[in-house]
């Protein structure tokens, strides 16, 4: 499994302005706000529905076995205003999801952004909502 754990820069935390922030669906309760990861895989399914969108994507581990990860997005209503649609991700798309991992160790993360194979970036959680975000 190609999971790159990134050390969180203190400067970024300061700029995020909310060290212990949660989000709707209790972001910091479900996810680790002080840890960011990149997970690369292939889209299986994409549910662009409220209250939160979910990207299902397969990640092949070192043992050759595929594990299905879930990437939870903000409300699709917020993302539509940032250019997302229900067609932004299609089964078979190779993606790298950057975000915050689930506290319970399950293969799930909160989506900061999605990078597609063609370099397109889909921005997810934003500090504009008054919580921890990537911009």
């Amino acid at each position, binding site marked *: 499994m190609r999971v790159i754990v990134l050390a969180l820069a203190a400067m970024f935390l300061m700029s995020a302005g909310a060290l212990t922030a*949660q989000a709707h669906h209790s972001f*910091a309760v479900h996810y680790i706000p002080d840890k960011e990861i990149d997970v690369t895989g292939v889209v299986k399914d994409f549910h662009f529905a*409220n209250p939160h969108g979910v990207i*299902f994507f397969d990640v092949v581990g070192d043992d050759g076995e595929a594990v299905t990860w879930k990437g939870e997005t903000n409300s699709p*209503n917020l993302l539509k*205003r940032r250019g997302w649609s229900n067609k932004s991700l299609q089964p078979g798309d190779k993606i790298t999801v950057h975000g915050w991992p689930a506290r319970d160790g399950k293969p799930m993360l909160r989506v900061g952004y999605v990078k597609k194979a063609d370099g397109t970036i889909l921005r997810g959680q934003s500090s*504009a909502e008054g919580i921890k975000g990537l911009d």
Partner: protein
Amino acid sequence: MSLTGAALAAAMVLATPAVAEVPRKDGHPDLSGFYNFTRIDEEAPAAKALIAKVPEGAVFMKDGGAYEFPPNEYGGLKPKPDVLAEARKWSPQQELEVQNICKKPSVIYAIQGPFPMEITQGRDMIVMQMEYFDMVRVIFMDGRDHPPADAPHSLLGHSIGHWEGDELVVDTTHLEPATITNNGLNHSEDAHFIERFRLSDDGQTLYSTEYIEDPTNLENTGYRLMAWKKHPGEHIFPYECDPFAYQEDE
């Protein structure tokens, strides 16, 4: 003034940027428009003016917008012992259960989230269309009172409003019990919700204080502060919650 001088003066007037101000309608600020959540500035003059009018003793619940309190924290609200015991049974996993994912809140929680709303202001009625859960509020401005206490309750409750200077005061009762903080603490059907809305001097940011008292469930009172930025030309999207969003298709 010479012709050239007059032309220069006219050009200067045309080049001066228009100063935005609070639009007015029927002698009151016109709150009509589309607003989206924006960062909450407690020091903004409009915010300070509203906070100054919050009833004494109310605690400031700083979870306006997307921020939510962790388990067992209620922003300074003091639940009655039996209510607190019930609230402590809450676990974060419960909100991901199918029966809870799309559970609609009352206006007390719905109005404090990071979602847009569109206001249409009439003389006798103000309509607030909230994107969150497609909730549409009607605020009666025609001088009527609340219905009798035993009238049906709902998640939107019954709202009556009036103007105090340039501030809209909205008084809501008849609320169906629902969450206050989205982490186990609920208000009762006796909750009383008072909002004060005020536009910034440039008319571009709408602030509100949201005061809650509920002597059945709470030992004290509290309030939130919210802020929305005006976005002309935008409109509300449907919410259409899907309780199966987290379940992979078969």
